[in-house]
């Protein structure tokens, strides 16, 4: 009887230990500006929740990471000579898949980047929910790649510098970008695999832009400012398109104000199996 009780106690302890085997670690890191004139930032993040926003004045970056130290190891590298900052979380021992038990806390990464230095930014997110605020950052180039995740990207304030290229790639995901007009970017690309993509082009337009949108299976929702001249080159397969507000000339859909608009947006859309929904909104 005593032996049975002991075995049960050990088994119970094992179950409890297994269920709470997560060893959470919090890493807070910060670096202040020391005369940097530009910065290349790479953020790699596999699983969890990602938040990215502008940092307080004086900070080059600030990162707060919460993760299971038995599964992950943090990445925090800064090459001052090359001006490259690498942040994120990678799996331990080369593991490519991470199994989460029920009740385990979701890893999280909060990154704040300096608004005082022009940035070239590359973000790779795996199966994570991300909430990104680019408003106020000095963005020169952005390459944002996400796998199976829910991503919300906001440009709530204008980009003070000219942005050369902005590319977003989303796999099986829900992707939303708002205030794209604030990005001050001439060339943009939004590539979605399967899922729902919402692109809100409102904001302070200071340049015309050429945008490529590719979506495999899913819905594309376009929010277009009324004061913006819009032309759409559409290549679609089994995809519905709401053409209200457009006139078709030579295979291209033009908004009625296209000729007179101060800034023009050219959308090159390639879509299959889904629908394209257009909503006209006030500019700012």
């Amino acid at each position: 009887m005593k032996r049975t009780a002991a075995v049960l106690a050990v088994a119970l302890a094992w179950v409890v230990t297994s269920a709470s085997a997560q060893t959470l670690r919090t890493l807070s890191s910060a670096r202040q500006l020391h005369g940097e004139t530009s910065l290349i930032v790479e953020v790699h993040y596999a699983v969890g929740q990602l938040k990215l926003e502008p940092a307080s004045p004086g900070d080059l970056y600030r990162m707060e990471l919460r993760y299971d130290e038995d599964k992950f190891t943090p990445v925090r590298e800064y090459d001052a000579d090359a001006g490259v900052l690498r942040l994120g979380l990678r799996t331990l021992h080369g593991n490519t898949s991470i199994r989460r038990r029920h009740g385990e806390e979701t890893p999280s990464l909060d990154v704040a980047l300096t608004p005082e230095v022009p940035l070239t930014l590359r973000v790779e997110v795996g199966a994570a929910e991300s909430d990104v605020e680019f408003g106020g950052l000095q963005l020169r180039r952005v390459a944002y790649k996400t796998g199976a995740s829910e991503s919300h990207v906001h440009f709530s304030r204008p980009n003070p510098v000219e942005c050369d290229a902005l590319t977003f790639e989303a796999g099986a995901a829900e992707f939303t970008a708002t205030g794209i007009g604030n990005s001050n970017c001439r060339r943009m690309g939004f590539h979605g695999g399967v899922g729902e993509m919402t692109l809100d082009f409102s904001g302070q337009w200071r340049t015309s832009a050429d945008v490529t949108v590719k979506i495999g299976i899913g819905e594309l929702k376009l929010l277009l400012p009324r004061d913006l001249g819009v032309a759409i080159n559409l290549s679609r397969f089994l995809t519905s398109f709401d053409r209200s507000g457009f006139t078709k000339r030579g295979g291209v859909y033009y908004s009625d104000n296209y000729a007179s608009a101060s800034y023009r947006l050219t959308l090159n859309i390639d879509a299959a199996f889904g629908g394209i929904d257009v909503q006209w909104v006030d500019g700012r």
Partner: protein
Amino acid sequence: MRSSARSLLALGLALAAAGSAAAQQRRDDVVSHAVAISSRDATLELDLASGKSRVVSLRDGDVIVDGQHVGHYAAGGALERAWRKLLSDGAALETGKMVAAARTWSAPGLAGGELDAQGRIASALRDLASAPLAIPAGASAAAAAPAAPESVRASFPAQPLTAESAPPPEPRAPAATSTGVQLLFGDVRNIVAIFIALAMIGFGTVFFARRYVEVIADTASNAFGRSLVVGLLGQLLLLPTLAMLIVGLIFTIVGILLLPFAIIAFIVAAVAAALGGYLAVAHAVGETWTRRRMANGAFVRHPTAYGYVFTGLVGLLGLWAAAALFGWAGPVVFVFRGAAFIVTWLAATVGFGAVLLSRAGLRETFAGRHAGDMSDEYLWATPPATPAAPRPGRRE
């Protein structure tokens, strides 16, 4: 003369010492900090301007400075509590304030080994200072950007930045696929590609397993309702069957080794059954249509299983082609798409059911191939012998 030379030497040495101290001080400037806290350890890492770092960690009862064990602490004791408080309070601070807090840190009520350990920590942090803050002056920051490493540059488009003053770009010239007719051709091209792929698979299946395809097709034709019901049930039971297979293999212990192969084999079998069933239904559709034409008097040269599959696929994919052709017509396209989807699903379901019913074409029970009485057709071809009337005068 000699005294003045001594004075100069002393002054030089003093200046050199001062310069060295300043240089030493600059090298020990802290440029960034990181605080890591978990149930196992509490670590402060300070990155110095010299490229080195100072790491102070309390881990598993050991006090570690730059990887060297310098003392012990009691778990949950005064030293650990004070150190963790310093780190958790300092995590949100700027680097300069964090350094200042660390330099003045002390834990009250320590004695013995913990007091010694605190002294070692304090001496490790005492000489550190935070580097002065230097915020770039706006526009000049953008101009003096350092070159990115090749690996980083490769990640981004290499096109140069265009001048802001350039006129807004005109919309791109209509691309190769942008006109209505070309869009139409693009859609139809995709349908044709799918048709060719299915036809190739169908011809291959007929070539290598004609008998089985015909049995499945006959089963679908002769037992349509039964095939549909079995196909529906089969679809519903696919996942439970897979789950049972997995559980069963796990219970046998030895079967765990076979688990990956079994799962792959199951998925391959399910896909093959659905695809093979669909092609068999195409065969049945093609055969039915061809025979009806022949019954109406049309001349068909060499009706074969290849022709049946081809004709059936034309019929089954016809609605998709119609949907593609009417893509410009707005809501009408949804009618075609809906119909095409239903027909495709129905064909796949019936085909899947026929595959199950006929055991992948091995069983002819539902294929309508009875070896019973001859049909009226044969009776017409070879009429039964009419009993002759007995000749007059002849006795039986």
